[in-house]
């Protein structure tokens, strides 16, 4: 299930989160900020101005995961029901995108976890191929083969923060992908491993430039997403825990330093 209890949620992690370009810059007042946008029934006011319930639902899911506040979970369920009970209408790729077919990678990262969830639960996984194809295209266009990180725009230098967002989206997607369609499931795993290796390679550098880049590019929400994603991947058996202990430790140390 997309909505589930995770380590960070169970421990009541109060880390701040940054959204993937949509709304998630809630900082230490995130619950307050959320509350201002919430209706009585826990739905979001911003929903009315935002056609992408999928993205919003995913955001709620993330907020729940890092805060442990069940109010976010309730909202996430609302969006799930909203999107998954649309009568006989088969939802399509565009239904999950705010800006339609012109979606950039930010939007893909936000919406695809819920799209794949929808496909798994309600649409016989028929569009798995399309979803995986989208992520392959994303890699073609935004993956900087020089520093093994994802960039914000085509032909730009890769950035660790962007890679973390892709990593997070991939682990979210994997949690909602049926392993029975193994070729698709495996494609996402391979993309995940490659993305993680790029991050490990970058964060593992001791050069002054790399340290500065991490400090300037990675904020606390990136660190939380990184740790959450890696822990989830370990739990899913996608990566070996002993290979990523240092990555998790270093990320936690950076968060401590930030505090």
């Amino acid at each position, binding site marked *: 299930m997309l909505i589930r209890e995770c380590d960070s949620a169970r421990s009541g992690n109060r880390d701040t989160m940054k959204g993937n370009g949509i709304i998630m810059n809630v900082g230490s007042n995130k619950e307050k900020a959320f509350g201002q946008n919430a209706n009585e029934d826990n739905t979001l006011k911003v929903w009315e101005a935002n056609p992408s319930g999928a993205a919003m639902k995913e955001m709620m899911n993330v907020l729940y995961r890092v805060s442990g506040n069940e109010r976010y979970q309730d909202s996430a369920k609302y969006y799930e029901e909203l999107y998954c009970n649309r009568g006989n209408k088969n939802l399509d790729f565009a239904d999950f995108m705010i800006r339609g077919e012109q979606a950039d990678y930010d939007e893909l990262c936000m919406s695809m976890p819920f799209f794949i969830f929808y496909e798994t639960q309600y649409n*016989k*996984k*028929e569009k*798995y*191929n399309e979803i995986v194809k989208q992520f392959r295209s994303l890699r073609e266009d935004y993956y900087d083969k020089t520093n093994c990180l994802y960039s914000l725009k085509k032909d730009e230098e890769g950035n660790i923060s962007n890679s973390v967002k892709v990593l997070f989206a991939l682990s979210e997607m994997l949690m909602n992908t049926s*392993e*029975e*369609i*193994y*070729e698709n499931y*495996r494609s996402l795993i391979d993309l995940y*491993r490659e993305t993680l290796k790029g991050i490990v390679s970058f964060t593992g550098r001791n050069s002054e430039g790399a340290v500065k880049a991490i400090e300037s590019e990675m904020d606390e929400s990136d660190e939380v997403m990184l740790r959450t994603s890696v822990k989830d991947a370990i739990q899913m*058996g996608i*990566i*070996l825990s002993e*290979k990523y202990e240092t990555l998790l430790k270093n990320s936690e140390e950076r968060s401590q330093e930030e505090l």
Partner: protein
Amino acid sequence: MKFDVIYKSARTIVLELKQQGKYYTEDYELYVNGSLYVSSNKVVQSIHGLKPDTTYEIYTKRADSQSEILSVTTEKEFVTLNVRAFGAKGDGIHDDTTFIQCAIQACPENGRVYIPKGTYKITTLFLKSNLKIELEKEATLSAITDRNQFPILPGVIQSYDETEELNLGTWEGNPLDCFAAVITGLGVSNVEITGEGTIDGCASKENWWDNPKIRRIAWRPRLIFLNHCEHITLQGITVKNSPSWNIHPYFSDHLRFLDLKILNPKDSPNTDGLDPESCHNVEIVGVYFSLGDDCIAIKSGKIYMGAKHKRASENIEIRQCCMRDGHGSITIGSEMAGGAKNITVKECRFLSTDRGLRIKTRRGRGKDAIIDGILFEDIIMDHVMTPVVINSFYFCDPDGHSEYVQSKNWYPVDDRTPYIGELVFRNLECTNCHAAAAYMYGLPEQKIKKVVFDHVNISFAENPTAGVPAMMDGVDETTRLGLFANNLEQLVLSKVTVEGQEGEAFLTSNIDNLQKKA
């Protein structure tokens, strides 16, 4: 009446009568050292209960004839390890797994693990190399059905350097976590499991077959699973009530399956009889099947495994077998992305199965999904719905009904396009068919290379039951449909008769080279 000795061990000999029928033959008597051993009507007959390193004189006899006397010396044997001596109770109550496993681990080369009469409750027994296990008549390995007690074989375990992986578990062509089988071999060689006993999976709708399409903890176990094994022989035993496929050799070579019985209820889910997957050099002789799914399904993985390993199932001979009930007598696919080559089926009897030969492929299986060198020879079919089905539009997988898979229009040949090469059907007698004489539909962009029907007689039942000859979009139920062929490069029909059909006997279209010989 001539016969060959096709297998011998310290305790067992298997004979095969030559040119005496297809699985069944006229009643005859089998004599061992001058005494009647058995009256039989089977072409492949085992002799059990022999002593090691002993010479026996064997002959067969009918009212009108007697074979020559053959002198056969059994193999030597060092020691017998009776599982009772290791603590197994065989009372059908206590869990005997550990005791029997202890005997297996303790068994030296040229020794024998002996399982005497009794019912032994077990979960999983793991084989080791250089092992002989014998199940006495009325000895039953009876599987516990609590899935919480079964070990799990992980689908994929990554190597420490993250460059390779270990694949242990598998489910329907993908490397996925599954429960260890009741009998599990992992990378073992030189194993013989013989005797007259039974391995009973005890599956029912109250346990393994309840909600069978859902993974619970792990995917369902097989009854016998051989992963990366070599030189394995199964002889004589009965396997039944498997939680899923009965016998599943996987990436294994040099395998012999002799005089077995494989039994599952007609309505049991995914209970294929014997499914060699990416295996080489397999001999299946004298096996009786009665099942709820395909009797023999030859496989080589779904898309990922096929593309990664490119390991076809090849050099497989199926002889003197009887297939009863079930969907397909011999099926190739649908998980065949690594290909299937050089498969011979001869002197067999197919009774009341949905299809005789059933090839299931589709666009998207990939360029390594090559089916070639298929020979069916000297086969009797009775009440088989459709004797031959070659389906290039099989609607499996989530995209099975998509335009790409189901379109009968031409698509460019690319890495996703499967290939079907040459198939020969010779000396087939098919009576009381129901749905169609044959149904062969190739891809327009990559037609079936060559199909030969030589001395094939097909007739229909007087009161046929309607059935769908091929599971592809747009094909409805039929009765008495003639021989249908579409999208073939070459079709040779030599001395072929179709009788009792409705409409044309031969419905051919898009055949580049059609040769008909009366």
